[in-house]
């Protein structure tokens, strides 16, 4: 009887937990969204509050000065233009930062994608990555992972794909390699495509090194990025 009691209790608990699972979802989503909004509100406060208030005040002032002190009005107007342009730039950066996927999200997405494509996935040197933690490189790293993994899925019959991070002095190395090359590219040359070319340009711009091409049994993309960022 004690056992049956325990069983009933356990099942009851299980049912309640399932229900909680469902209602928790809604609640958690709401809280997370709110938290995110508050965070953005804080960012915005710093970014926009100052600039737009300044523009409002200076334009009112310029309007008042126009008759009596036109040269002072002209100075205020020049300030307004500068502040507006500068802020516009800042907003663009903030917006693209909000859109930017974090590297860890990107790696998780890569794992899921490879899994459903039936490709075994290995990640090496994740520790390095955390130790390094360079926000300045996060965008280009995410880009490398995304393009590299997309290519593995599109162009190979890989059974395995490995993403490796490695630090060597002031360089962060990222290697994405896979087996199952579909057609050995002619003369080791890689067909023209926009993905790798764009990536190479960005990496060189950052003062890094870039290499991509077929290897013995597959394909390898290898990039080195200077840890000083830019």
């Amino acid at each position: 009887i004690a056992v049956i009691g325990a069983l009933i209790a356990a099942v009851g608990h299980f049912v309640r937990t399932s229900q909680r699972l469902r209602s928790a979802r809604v609640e958690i989503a709401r809280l997370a969204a709110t938290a995110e909004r508050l965070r953005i509100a804080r960012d915005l406060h710093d970014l926009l509050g100052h600039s737009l208030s300044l523009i409002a005040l200076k334009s009112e002032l310029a309007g008042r000065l126009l008759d009596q002190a036109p040269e002072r009005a002209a100075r205020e107007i020049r300030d307004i233009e500068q502040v507006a342009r500068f802020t516009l730039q800042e907003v663009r950066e903030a917006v693209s930062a909000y859109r930017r996927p974090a590297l860890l999200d990107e790696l998780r997405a890569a794992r899921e994608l490879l899994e459903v494509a039936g490709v075994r996935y290995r990640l090496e040197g994740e520790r390095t990555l955390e130790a390094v933690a360079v926000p300045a490189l996060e965008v280009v790293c995410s880009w490398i992972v995304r393009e590299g993994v997309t290519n593995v899925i599109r162009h190979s019959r890989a059974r395995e794909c490995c993403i490796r991070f490695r630090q060597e002095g002031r360089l962060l190395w990222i290697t994405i390699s896979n087996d199952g090359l579909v057609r050995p590219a002619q003369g080791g040359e890689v067909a023209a495509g926009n993905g790798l070319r764009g990536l190479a340009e960005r990496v060189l711009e950052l003062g890094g090194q870039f290499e991509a091409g077929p290897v013995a049994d597959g394909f390898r993309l290898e990039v080195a990025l200077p840890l000083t960022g830019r």
Partner: protein
Amino acid sequence: MIRVLLAEDQAMVRGALVALLSLAGDIEVVAEVGRGDEVVPAALEARPDVALLDIEMPGGDGLTVAAALHRQLPECRILILTTFGRPGYLKQALANGVVGFLLKDAPSAQLATAIRRALAGERIVDPSLAMAALSEGDNPLTER
């Protein structure tokens, strides 16, 4: 003339506010500071009727500074100038002896009116700031 102290860390904003307030005619800015910790000393020296305090400043935020100023110079009416309401701000401001909570970008005529009304003993809260304070409550994540 109404004697006003202005605390605002951004020099350009401060300059524009001083110029606009001076155009009002009956308002004289008797002290300008760019840091929170300069507010009380400057106020004790200049004895303003009204203090306009920015919230985010180096050397002490406007809400905390308001409490100290209210203690040391209780006859001075304190108004907070800010760009966005944040959960808890209005509450804390009112608790710290602040009588007005205004938008920094308000037209200067509105600001001048608020200064006069504060001096006459009224409480002035910009509706959109009150709204933000009311609708957000406290940060929900810290409640759990």
